[in-house]
């Protein structure tokens, strides 16, 4: 075996299966069953990366999700994963890992110079230093990003497939440690539908690293039996490599299942990840507990690991994390790590225990070996650069406030630390609970929640194996009973282990002057030390949430899983208050970082994420070279360039052709709603601002819809097809909103009205035939309609036939020209379009798109709701007061039209603008001022809402909303642009073409 730090035997690795991988380009060998970190440790590699701010060498700290240091860039190219926790990355053949935060290389890092100046980079350093002068921030930011970046986001399209699934279950068990397995067994045996999700490659949790016994058999065997039994149960789903990362309202939980990341890339098939969205009747949180580190000077050197992680590496992964170890603790559990190390053949120099006495059976077992137990002492400093060389130990005074005596320096390359245990309360807190501080046990326990949920085992603070089994069984039984199953499983039995209390040791005394000594780190990933928290308090930050944001404690990819509780302890101590009063920061989803792919699933692109809507004539537009514009989800032809034409060339040509002969526009996207029923006219009287009762059958009318605040909401033409049947047009973007709006009034306010609304936008294809020759074109296509000017007047509607297909022709105009809108069932859209094109051939009929449509309507001063209005514009502001009924007692929004704010004289009102230079087109959105030479900030009097070059007029035209504009005709305003240029313009009426309005009536 080539790995120098493998134990002789044992572990859950397969010694027959060697796996080759690379780290920073160098080849290594590991074993099947390894994680990336266990394989590196087996090769004696401790230093993994550099820290975020000071670029200090950092190594593996933990063996789980809480890992702050050992994060990697996995693979390169389109499958690259940034910031993967090496403690949770399963080793596979060919794995390519590299460090994330060192430049130019891990061994030689130029920015490690930051470490020498750490005193000059305190908490809030970036806020204090780089915000001045303001103009330089962008330049500083560039440098800071390079210096402090973590992993690199992929730049190429993700080739993998991601899936979503939705499930219901009786009991969702989170965590596959012994508590979770027991709960799942209890609920499963009762017949409940159970999902049990476990984060690791195999269930068992921390017990996978244990040598204990359950029900008289080896704990590992018991786990195997439990898993086998669960897999046999038809109603139980056991998920491995599955992290429950979000706990939402009404027991809705999200699970990220990793399907193939553990396989060599060539062997992967199917999806990469599956997102489970589970609605559970009952939830059992068996998420375990995480060990806390201890805080002392230079506590971040490679070779300093959590004691429980040391046990996991030796027992589960058969790795010796060092040759000579010291164990440093404030509680009993680390004594087991000392025994595990010794059994693995690692020399254990001493157990340093901050408690003056430790008399548990476990401690005494250690004492009976050659391991020295040093009570009442603390580690005050360490030495070593890229790897730990020694630790310095001093005696703690009786009251624990100072250290004294000689410094006992112990040579070692491994320090196993344990600062006590914290239940993993993240999901409980996400579900709406506030974690509760237990002073006696020195831990936050899960709090009360409204949701049907129970925490069991270490997650609820029961750290002993027997307790986990008992609580697991109880939780499983209770959850099943709550779902009306009979459940009575007896708890599996394990030896009772006595343990003595943990000594809280948030910020142990040190021989250094406060704030002056070497850094004692709280949050390794963000380089936040004890002194930073103390500084934040001195500078006036008191809330834990503010301290977090000022120091950056608890940010980053680990979200403070390792260091936050220690940080809250230090904060409480500094502020001389209890931890209960200090509280925790807010736990939010996601528990661990989740890939974007997982959230997206198959909701990708224009098919499933944001579907594209195409009209029935879309293919024709494509074949004829149209450029398209997105209007909501619709693709609308924007313009039809001919060879060599720019947008403006094409629009000028389309405009002139339409005004001079005939043009054709695909108007299918306009919203269409059928309004039917005996009360239809009465209903429209309330919805629209004008009169509808007396509209004749076969006639059309233009109407405004207001919000109840009196502001313009939508507009369009509505046709009376029969006494009780109206055909309403809405704006393209407003169709769905208008339907919901009208439904709301009908359902909630006027349920007595007999009116039915049906959306028919997609049922009809519509072509607008526009221009002086339009009558000839439509007459040639619908021979059965009399298009004579008096037989078929403006604002009338008739049905007829194109070939054998029924169609409806409306004589309405959004261009100021003689125009007809021809509607046909959508399936015949292209048939109709081609008939019209054919009939128009001799008039050189010109297809035009939305850009020309905009110019034509602006030449006439017709507004577009949403472009010339913005939710703060009334009909009077638009100068269209004629559309407001003076006789109707009420309509939606009417009362608001007499509110003091609505009748202000200085409201922004719609006007036209003519630029001094007729060829200059003011940019849309430009702000208008009266005097460009006034002192900055210039008082703004309005803005430009529509602006084009008009080929028909031979000059530019614009529409603008100007304060009091209706009374400023002929006055001058200026549009100062960001370039420094100022455009001068004169206020006019907003009608630029055919001011008499005779043409549509021709």
């Amino acid at each position: 075996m080539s790995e120098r730090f493998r134990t002789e035997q044992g572990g859950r690795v397969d010694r027959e299966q060697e796996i080759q991988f690379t780290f920073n380009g160098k080849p290594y060998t590991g074993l099947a069953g390894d994680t990336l970190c266990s394989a590196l440790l087996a090769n004696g590699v401790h230093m993994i990366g550099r820290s975020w701010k000071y670029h200090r060498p950092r190594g593996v700290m933990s063996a789980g999700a809480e890992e702050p240091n050992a994060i990697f860039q996995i693979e390169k190219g389109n499958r690259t994963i940034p910031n993967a926790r090496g403690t949770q990355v399963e080793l596979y053949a060919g794995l390519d890992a590299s460090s994330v935060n060192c430049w130019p290389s891990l061994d030689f890092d130029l920015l490690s110079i930051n470490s020498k100046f750490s005193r000059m980079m305190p908490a809030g350093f970036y806020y204090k230093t780089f915000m001045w002068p303001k103009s330089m921030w962008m330049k500083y930011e560039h440098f800071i990003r390079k210096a402090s970046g973590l992993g690199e986001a992929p730049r190429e399209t993700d080739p993998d497939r991601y899936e979503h699934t939705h499930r219901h279950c009786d009991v969702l068990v989170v965590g596959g440690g012994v508590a979770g397995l027991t709960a799942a067994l209890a609920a499963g045996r009762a017949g409940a539908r159970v999902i049990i999700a476990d984060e690791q490659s195999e269930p068992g949790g921390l017990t996978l690293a244990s040598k204990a016994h359950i029900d008289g058999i080896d704990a590992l065997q018991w786990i195997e039996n439990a898993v086998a039994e669960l897999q046999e149960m038809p109603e139980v789903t056991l998920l491995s490599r599955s992290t429950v990362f979000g706990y939402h309202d009404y027991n809705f939980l999200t699970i990220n299942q990793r399907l193939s990341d553990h396989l060599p890339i060539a062997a992967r098939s199917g999806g990469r990840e599956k997102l489970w969205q589970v609605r559970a009747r009952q939830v059992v949180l068996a998420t375990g507990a995480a060990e806390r580190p201890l805080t002392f000077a230079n506590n971040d050197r490679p070779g300093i690991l959590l004691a429980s992680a040391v046990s996991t590496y030796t027992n589960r992964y058969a790795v010796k994390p060092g040759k000579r170890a010291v164990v440093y603790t404030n509680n009993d559990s680390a004594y087991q790590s000392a025994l595990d190390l010794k059994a693995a053949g690692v020399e254990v120099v001493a157990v340093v225990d901050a408690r003056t006495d430790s008399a548990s059976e476990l401690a005494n077992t250690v004492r009976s070996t050659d391991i020295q137990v040093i009570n009442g002492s603390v580690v005050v400093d360490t030495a070593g650069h890229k790897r730990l060389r020694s630790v310095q130990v001093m005696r703690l005074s009786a009251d624990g406030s100072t250290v004294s005596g000689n410094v006992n320096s112990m040579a070692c390359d491994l320090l196993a630390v344990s600062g006590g245990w914290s239940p993993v309360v993240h999901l409980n807190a996400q579900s709406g609970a506030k974690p509760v501080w237990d002073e006696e046990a020195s831990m936050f326990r899960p709090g009360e929640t409204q949701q049907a949920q129970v925490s069991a085992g270490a997650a609820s603070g029961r750290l002993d194996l027997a307790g986990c089994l008992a609580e697991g069984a109880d939780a499983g039984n209770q959850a099943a009973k709550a779902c009306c199953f009979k459940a009575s499983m007896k708890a599996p039995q394990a030896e009772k282990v006595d343990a003595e209390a943990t000594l809280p040791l948030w910020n142990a005394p040190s021989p250094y002057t406060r704030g002056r000594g070497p850094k004692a780190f709280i949050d390794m990933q963000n380089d936040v030390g004890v002194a930073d928290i103390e500084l934040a308090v001195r500078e006036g930050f008191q809330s834990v949430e503010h301290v977090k944001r000022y120091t950056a404690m608890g940010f980053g990819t680990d979200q403070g899983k390792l260091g936050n509780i220690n940080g809250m302890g230090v904060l409480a101590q500094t502020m001389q208050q209890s931890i209960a009063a200090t509280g925790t920061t807010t736990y939010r989803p996601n528990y661990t970082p989740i890939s974007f792919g997982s959230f997206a699933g198959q909701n990708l692109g224009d098919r499933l994420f944001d579907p594209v809507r195409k009209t029935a004539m879309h293919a024709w537009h494509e074949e004829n070279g149209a450029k398209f514009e997105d209007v909501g989800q619709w693709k609308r032809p924007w313009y039809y360039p001919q060879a060599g034409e720019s947008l403006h060339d094409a629009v000028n040509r389309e405009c002139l052709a339409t005004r001079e002969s005939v043009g054709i526009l695909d108007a299918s996207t306009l919203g269409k709603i059928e309004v039917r029923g005996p009360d239809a006219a009465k209903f429209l009287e309330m919805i629209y601002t004008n009169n509808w009762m007396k509209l004749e059958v076969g006639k059309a009318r233009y109407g405004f819809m207001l919000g109840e605040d009196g502001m313009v909401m939508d507009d369009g033409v509505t046709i009376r097809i029969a006494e009780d049947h109206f055909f309403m047009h809405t704006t393209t973007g407003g169709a769905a909103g208008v339907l919901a709006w009208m439904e709301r009034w009908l359902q909630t306010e006027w349920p007595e009205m007999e009116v039915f609304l049906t959306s028919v936008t997609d049922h009809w294809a519509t072509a607008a035939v526009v221009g002086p020759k339009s009558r000839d074109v439509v007459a040639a296509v619908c021979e059965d309609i009399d298009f004579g000017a008096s037989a078929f007047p403006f604002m009338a509607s008739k049905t007829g036939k194109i070939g054998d297909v029924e169609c409806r022709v409306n004589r309405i105009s959004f261009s100021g020209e003689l125009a007809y809108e021809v509607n046909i069932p959508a399936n015949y859209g292209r048939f109709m379009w081609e008939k019209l094109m054919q009939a128009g051939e001799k008039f050189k009929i010109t297809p035009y798109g939305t850009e020309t449509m905009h110019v034509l309507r602006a030449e006439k001063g017709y507004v577009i709701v949403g472009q010339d209005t913005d939710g703060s514009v009334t009909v009077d502001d638009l100068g269209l007061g004629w559309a407001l009924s003076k006789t109707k007692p009420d309509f939606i929004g009417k009362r608001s039209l007499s509110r003091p704010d609505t009748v202000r004289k200085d409201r922004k009102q719609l006007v036209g603008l003519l630029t001094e230079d007729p060829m200059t087109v003011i940019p849309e959105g430009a702000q208008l001022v009266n005097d460009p030479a006034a002192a900055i900030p210039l008082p703004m009097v309005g803005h430009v809402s529509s602006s084009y070059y008009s080929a028909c007029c031979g000059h530019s035209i614009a529409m603008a909303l100007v304060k009091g504009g209706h009374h400023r005709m002929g006055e001058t305003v200026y549009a100062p642009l960001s370039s420094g240029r100022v455009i001068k313009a004169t206020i006019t009426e907003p009608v630029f073409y055919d001011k008499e309005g005779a043409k549509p009536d021709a």
Partner: protein
Amino acid sequence: MFLIECPWCGMRDETEFSCFGEAHIARPLETEKLSDEEWADYLFMRKNPKGAHREQWLHAAGCRRYFNAERDTVSYQISATYKIGEKPPGGSRK
């Protein structure tokens, strides 16, 4: 994500619904007779209670029916849903 009982369709996920804010705001009958203050009260003033709150919801991606719900704004528990025109459970509350 809430689980909401549509009075017409039964229990459905929150993603199918839209919320329209405070329920039981009747449109005044003779709007022209209202003072500006009375109209502003109808138009703008909304309750924002801590605790039980009656809201109007729409089963937008379902039956497209509006209905009312009583929801606790702290615990997010929905104690009742009922059709438009039905009396809220527990009687009126100011």
